[in-house]
């Protein structure tokens, strides 16, 4: 390893923005697997030691493609006390929250127990992760709020977990992943949407997951870069399914957040859906309005990875269609494709839109005073 750090590596960036911001996609990590044991019944601790965790995908544990950097993370994000990137609250405060004036940070833990074949184990692991989020993060720093992680492939146990956490101010959304066993509009996932709607919690759909299907619609690709851009294709399938299965019609107060899959594709997907819906609506009579209406009313978008067209006007055109009131700023800390708050939005945005983009929309959606 030929990496060498400055001694002051964690020091605040001089470019940090001074106005308060929300960061709607932060990934806390566990230093060790045993960190979860205090929240897991002995039965499941033993199960993990003996049998491990089995995902739906046909490969061994771990992601199907090696990531660009260790743990897919910034190389300067290793905590000084050791452990993986994102595993230290004090270092996260020093490197992310303090210098960037983060007023609200939404935690989205990954590799949690979602999307594994043993549904009882999945439910137990997700519940343990939720307890761990309170103990280690949200109770120790009031700026941080957690997402309720649920065993997504078993809608009923997922709904039970949501109902148990409902009303707990440590949590501000329900977390799903984009790659699942079936497209996200299918009936098996409806209990999740029902419980989330009842609890008044948005449902975030974060890129990734281990659903067992190829990670592009046309099969397994050769390169990690194809997986990266494949997230938007996967999210488009999920969104089309949510609209066309009638999820938004059935749950009109449901709010969905599309996390880490871009947003530049949203207008064209909506235009295509509207066009074919006009011709084929008799196939899906439960979709009573043009698909774009559901999308614009019930969907929010996190910004990272922020689209970066050559002409900033192109970006502004897309955002204008989506709405400046629909974007939620996110860094994706500590992951390697992190967006730096002070550098991500081109000049030429008025103060109201800028404030909404960086903070206002998130506070409103997540109910933070």
């Amino acid at each position, binding site marked *: 390893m030929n990496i060498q750090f400055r001694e002051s590596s964690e020091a605040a960036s001089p470019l940090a923005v001074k106005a308060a911001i929300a960061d709607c996609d932060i990934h806390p990590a566990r230093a060790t697997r045993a960190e979860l044991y205090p929240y897991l019944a002995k039965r499941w601790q033993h199960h993990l030691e003996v049998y491990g965790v089995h995902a739906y995908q046909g490969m061994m544990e771990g992601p199907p493609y090696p990531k660009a950097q260790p743990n897919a993370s910034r*190389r300067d994000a290793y905590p000084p006390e050791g452990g993986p990137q994102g595993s230290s609250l004090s270092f996260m405060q020093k490197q992310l929250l303090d210098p960037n004036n983060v007023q609200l940070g939404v935690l989205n833990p990954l590799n949690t127990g979602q999307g594994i074949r043993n549904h009882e184990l999945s439910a137990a692991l997700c519940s343990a992760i939720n307890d761990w989020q309170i103990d280690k993060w949200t109770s120790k720093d009031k700026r941080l709020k957690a997402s309720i992680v649920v065993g997504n492939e078993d809608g009923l146990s997922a709904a039970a977990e949501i109902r148990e956490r409902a009303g707990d101010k440590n949590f501000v959304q329900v977390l799903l992943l984009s790659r699942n066993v079936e497209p996200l509009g299918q009936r098996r996932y409806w209990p999740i949407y029902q419980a989330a709607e009842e609890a008044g919690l948005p449902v975030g759909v974060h890129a990734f997951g281990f659903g067992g299907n190829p990670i592009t619609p046309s099969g397994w690709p050769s390169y990690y870069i194809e997986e990266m851009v494949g997230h938007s294709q996967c999210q488009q399938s999920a969104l089309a399914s949510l609209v066309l299965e009638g999820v938004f019609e059935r749950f009109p107060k449901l709010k969905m957040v599309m996390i880490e899959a871009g947003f530049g594709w949203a207008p064209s997907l909506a235009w295509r859906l509207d066009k074919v819906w006009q011709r084929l609506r008799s196939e899906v009579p439960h979709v009573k309005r043009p698909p774009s209406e559901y999308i614009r009313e019930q969907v929010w978008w996190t910004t990272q990875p922020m689209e970066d067209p050559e002409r900033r006007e192109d970006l502004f055109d897309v955002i204008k269609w989506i709405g400046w009131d629909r974007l939620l700023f996110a860094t994706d800390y500590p992951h390697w494709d992190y967006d*730096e708050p002070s550098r991500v939005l081109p000049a030429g945005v008025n103060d109201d839109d800028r404030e909404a983009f960086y903070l206002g929309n998130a506070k409103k959606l997540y109910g933070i005073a």
Partner: protein
Amino acid sequence: MARHVIAAVDEFPPGTRKFLEIDGRPIAIFNIKGEYFGLMNRCPHQGAALCEGPLIGLAQSKDPGEIEYTKLGEIIRCPWHGWEFDIRTGQSYCDPRRFRVKAYPAHVEPGASVVKGPYVAETIAVKVESDYVVVEL
């Protein structure tokens, strides 16, 4: 253009780098197999501390299926987004027209010459018998 003494040559072995701040500018000096290179330690993309990244080579391809890997240890890869720059020139390989890291020439001078310079005494205890790595900016 002022000369700044970085270190005595025998305290700056090959394969290491030194981080310093000169006139408020974050700079890193590399010793690559006895050659010295200086770069601004700030990525022109989103501002990360560029010089904390790993040193890699340059993968290039004339045609799909043919891969050439050169400049081993001479390409710095940003610790955040992996953007690659040539430490000899600061040139970017993904968008050389728009992005370039400021490069600072660094070289070795005999102790007898640096001890005469006006900026020496404050920064380092000069031993006249040694050679020193010097950067100009």
